[in-house]
C-alpha cells in the first residue's frame, strides 16, 4: 500500500513536471505582411518595410519566450508572386496579411485554414458582420479581417479657391453630378493657374483601377455583379466608360495615364498639375499629410473629400476594401496551431487594430475598436458617407477576381489611345472575362 502511494505521488509529480514542459515546447511561426503601413503617422520610428510588424512580433516573443516569430515584409508586386509560388512549393507562411482580393483566391483554392474552427466565437462576434460575410467562402472564414480602406475623390480646394472657382467644389453634400464635375474640371483647366490635367489617373497597371471604376459606379454601372458575373455588358457601365473617355480625350485627365505610375499621380497633385485624384483616408492623411509635412507639396493644399461624380438619379456607394490575416494549412500539430491562433489574435486584437488604423488612417474591422481617429473631421465624414451611401461591390471575393482585374488596363489604354471605342473595350473584356472564368 505504501509502495502504491509512493508510486502515485511520483506519477503525479511527473505529470506536474511534464505538463508545463510540453506547453513550453518551442514553436516557430512565420508571418508575412504587406507594406500597407509604409508611412505611419504617430510611429515615425518605423520607416522600413515590416518594422512595425517586427516590433509587434518582438512584443509577442517577450510574452511567450518559447515562440519564435519570423517576420517577412513583402512589397505589393511580391505579394502577388512570392506567396503563390510558396504555396505551390508547399512552403507558405503560417500567417499572411494581405487584402481580400488576393486572400479570397487562396480561400477559393482551399489552402487557408477555416478560422471559424480556430478563432473563439466571441472574437468573431466582435468583427463587423458585413466583413465576416465577405470573408466567408463556402462556409469557411478564409481570413480574419483587420481593417478596411475607402476610396473617394480628393480635391485640392486651394487651387479652386485660387482660381476663384471654390464654389464649384461640393463641400456641402460632398456629391457632384457628372455635368457639375465636368464643368469644374473644364473651368480649373481654363483658369490658367497651371492645372494642366484636373484629374490625375493611371491605367498602366491594375493598381489604379478604383480611380477608374468609380466613374463607372457613378453612372450606375458595375464591373462585378452581386452574383460574381461581370457587368461589362451593362449599358450603364458603357455610359460611365464613355464619360471617363471623354475626360481623357478632352485633356481633363493626364495624357500619360497609359504609362503613368502611382508616384506620377501623386506628383501631379503635389505640384498642382492636377487638382483632383482618387484615394481614401490613407492617401489623405499619410500620403498628402506627410507630403505637406516633408515639403514635397509645392502648391497650396486644402484637400477635401467628395464622392465621385454620379449620373442623374444614381447614388453611388464608396469603394471599400478590407485587409485580413489568412492562416495557411501547413499540417501543423494542434499544439502549434494553438500558438498560431494566439499570435493571430495578438496581431488582430482591439489594441493592435486601434494602433494600426490610427497610423494608416483606415477603419478597424472590430466593433470594439470604435472610431480610432474620431477627432479627424475627414475620417468622421468618410465614415458617415459610407453609412449614408453604402459601398460598391468590388468583386474582391469573386473567383477569377485578380485575373479579370489585370485583363482590364490594356483595354482602358486602347480606348484612351483611340484604338478601341468604349463599346469595343467592353465587348473585348466581356469575352476575356468569360474565358478567364471558364478556365
Amino acid at each position, binding site marked *: 500500500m505504501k509502495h502504491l502511494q509512493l508510486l502515485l505521488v511520483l506519477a503525479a509529480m511527473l505529470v506536474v513536471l511534464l505538463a508545463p514542459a510540453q506547453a513550453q515546447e518551442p514553436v516557430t511561426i512565420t508571418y508575412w505582411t504587406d507594406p500597407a503601413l509604409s508611412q505611419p503617422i504617430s510611429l515615425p520610428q518605423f520607416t522600413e518595410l515590416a518594422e512595425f510588424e517586427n516590433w509587434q512580433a518582438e512584443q509577442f516573443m517577450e510574452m511567450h519566450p518559447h515562440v519564435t516569430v519570423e517576420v517577412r515584409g513583402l512589397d505589393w508586386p511580391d505579394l502577388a508572386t512570392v506567396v503563390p509560388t510558396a*504555396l505551390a512549393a508547399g512552403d507558405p507562411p503560417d500567417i499572411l496579411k494581405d487584402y481580400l482580393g488576393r486572400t479570397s483566391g487562396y480561400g477559393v483554392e482551399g489552402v487557408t485554414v477555416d478560422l471559424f474552427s480556430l478563432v473563439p466565437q466571441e472574437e468573431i462576434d466582435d468583427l463587423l458582420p458585413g466583413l465576416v460575410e465577405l470573408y466567408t467562402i463556402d462556409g469557411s472564414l478564409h481570413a480574419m479581417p483587420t481593417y478596411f480602406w475607402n476610396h473617394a475623390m480628393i480635391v485640392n480646394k486651394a487651387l479652386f479657391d485660387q482660381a476663384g472657382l471654390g464654389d464649384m467644389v461640393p463641400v456641402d453634400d460632398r456629391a457632384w453630378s457628372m455635368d457639375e464635375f465636368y464643368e469644374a474640371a473644364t473651368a480649373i483647366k481654363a483658369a490658367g493657374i497651371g492645372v494642366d490635367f484636373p484629374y490625375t489617373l493611371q491605367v498602366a497597371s491594375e493598381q489604379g483601377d478604383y480611380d477608374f471604376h468609380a466613374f463607372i459606379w457613378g453612372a450606375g454601372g458595375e464591373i462585378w455583379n452581386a452574383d460574381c458575373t461581370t457587368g461589362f455588358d451593362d449599358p450603364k457601365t458603357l455610359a460611365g466608360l464613355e464619360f471617363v473617355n471623354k475626360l481623357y480625350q478632352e485633356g481633363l485627365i493626364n495624357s500619360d495615364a497609359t504609362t503613368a505610375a502611382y508616384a506620377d499621380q501623386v506628383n501631379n497633385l503635389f505640384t498642382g498639375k492636377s487638382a483632383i485624384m482618387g484615394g481614401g483616408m490613407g492617401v489623405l492623411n499619410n500620403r498628402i499629410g506627410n507630403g505637406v509635412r516633408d515639403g514635397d507639396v509645392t502648391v497650396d493644399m486644402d484637400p477635401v473629400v467628395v464622392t465621385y461624380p454620379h449620373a442623374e438619379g444614381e447614388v453611388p456607394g464608396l469603394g471599400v476594401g478590407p485587409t485580413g490575416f489568412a492562416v495557411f494549412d501547413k499540417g501543423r500539430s494542434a499544439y502549434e496551431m494553438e500558438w498560431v491562433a494566439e499570435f493571430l489574435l495578438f496581431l488582430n486584437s482591439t489594441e493592435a487594430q486601434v494602433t494600426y488604423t490610427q497610423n494608416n488612417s483606415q477603419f478597424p474591422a472590430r466593433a470594439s475598436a470604435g472610431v480610432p481617429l474620431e477627432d479627424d473631421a475627414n475620417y468622421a465624414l468618410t465614415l458617415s458617407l459610407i453609412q449614408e451611401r453604402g459601398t460598391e461591390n468590388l468583386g474582391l471575393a469573386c473567383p477569377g477576381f485578380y485575373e479579370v482585374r489585370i485583363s482590364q488596363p*490594356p483595354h482602358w489604354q486602347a480606348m484612351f489611345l483611340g484604338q478601341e471605342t468604349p463599346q469595343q473595350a467592353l465587348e473585348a473584356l466581356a*469575352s476575356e472575362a468569360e474565358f478567364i472564368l471558364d478556365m
Partner: protein
Amino acid sequence: MLQRFTTNVWKGRWAYFFIAPAMIPFAIFTAYPLVQGLLLSFYKAGVNRDKWKYIGLKNYTNLLTRDPVFPTAIKNTFLFVLGVVPAAMVICLFVAVLIYPLSQRKQTFFRAAFYMPVVSAGVVLAMVWVYIYSQEYGLLNYIFESLGLLNLLNDGEKIGWLAQTNTALLSLAIVVLSWSLGQPLILFLAGLGAIPEPLYDAAKIDGANSWQSFWKITLPLLRPTMLFVLVVLTIAVFQVFVVVQLMTLGGPANATQTIVYRIWVTGIVGSKFGYGSAMAVILLSIVSVVAIVQFKLLDRQLT
C-alpha cells in the same frame, strides 16, 4: 543487354566520374524542372497541389484558339527577334571591324564601353531609358525638338515613346539592342583575332581592296563565330522580359506583350502554373525550331 550496359558504364566510369560535377546540377536544376514543366503543362494547376487536375491538351488548345493576348505576345516576340538580332549582328560586326585595327588600349576602351550595359543592373538602365523616353522631360524629345524633328513627325507635339502603340515596341527594341551589343562584340573581336594575318597580306598582293578582303576573307572565316552569336542572341531575345516588366508592363494596349512576360503574368502572378507551363513549352518549341533552322542554314555554308 543490361549486362552490356553495366559493362559499358563500368568501362567509362572515370569519364562519368569527371562529368558528374557538371551533369548532376544540370540534371537537378535544368533537366528535372524542364520535364516537370512539360508534365505540368497538361494539368490545371493552381496554388493548391491537392487540386491539380490532368486536363490533357486543353491548356494548349486554349492558348492557341481562345487566349486573346497570347497570339499578340507571339507576334511581338518575333518582331523583337527580327528587329534586334539582325541589327545587333550588323552593328557588332561593323564596330568590331572598325576597332580591331586600333591599339590594344583603344580596343579595351571600346570593349568596356559596349560591355558596360551587360554588367550593369537592368533596373538602373531601365530607369535611365524611361527618363530618355519620357514624354514630358525626356532627353529624346528634347533632342528631337532641338533638331526640329518634332514638327516633322508629330506636328510639334512631344511624343510619348512608351505611351503610343506604334512607338512602344520599337522603343523597347532599341533598349534591348543597346543591352545586347557587348557580348557579340567581344566574340567578334576574338573571332577577328583568330583570322591568320597572312591571308590579308596575300589578298593585298593579289590586288584585293579592303571591301574585297572583308567579303572574301573576314566574313567567311567569321562564320562559326557568327553562327554562335546568332543562336545565342536569338535565344536571349526570345526571352525578353525585364524591359517589358520594368518599362511598360506589356502596354500600352498589349503593344509590348511578349511570351515570357505572359508566362510571368499568367503563370506566376495569376497562379495558373499549368497554363504558364504550356506557354513555356510553346516558347521552348519555337526557340528550338528556330535554332535548328539557323544551325542547318549556317552549318551548310560552313562545310
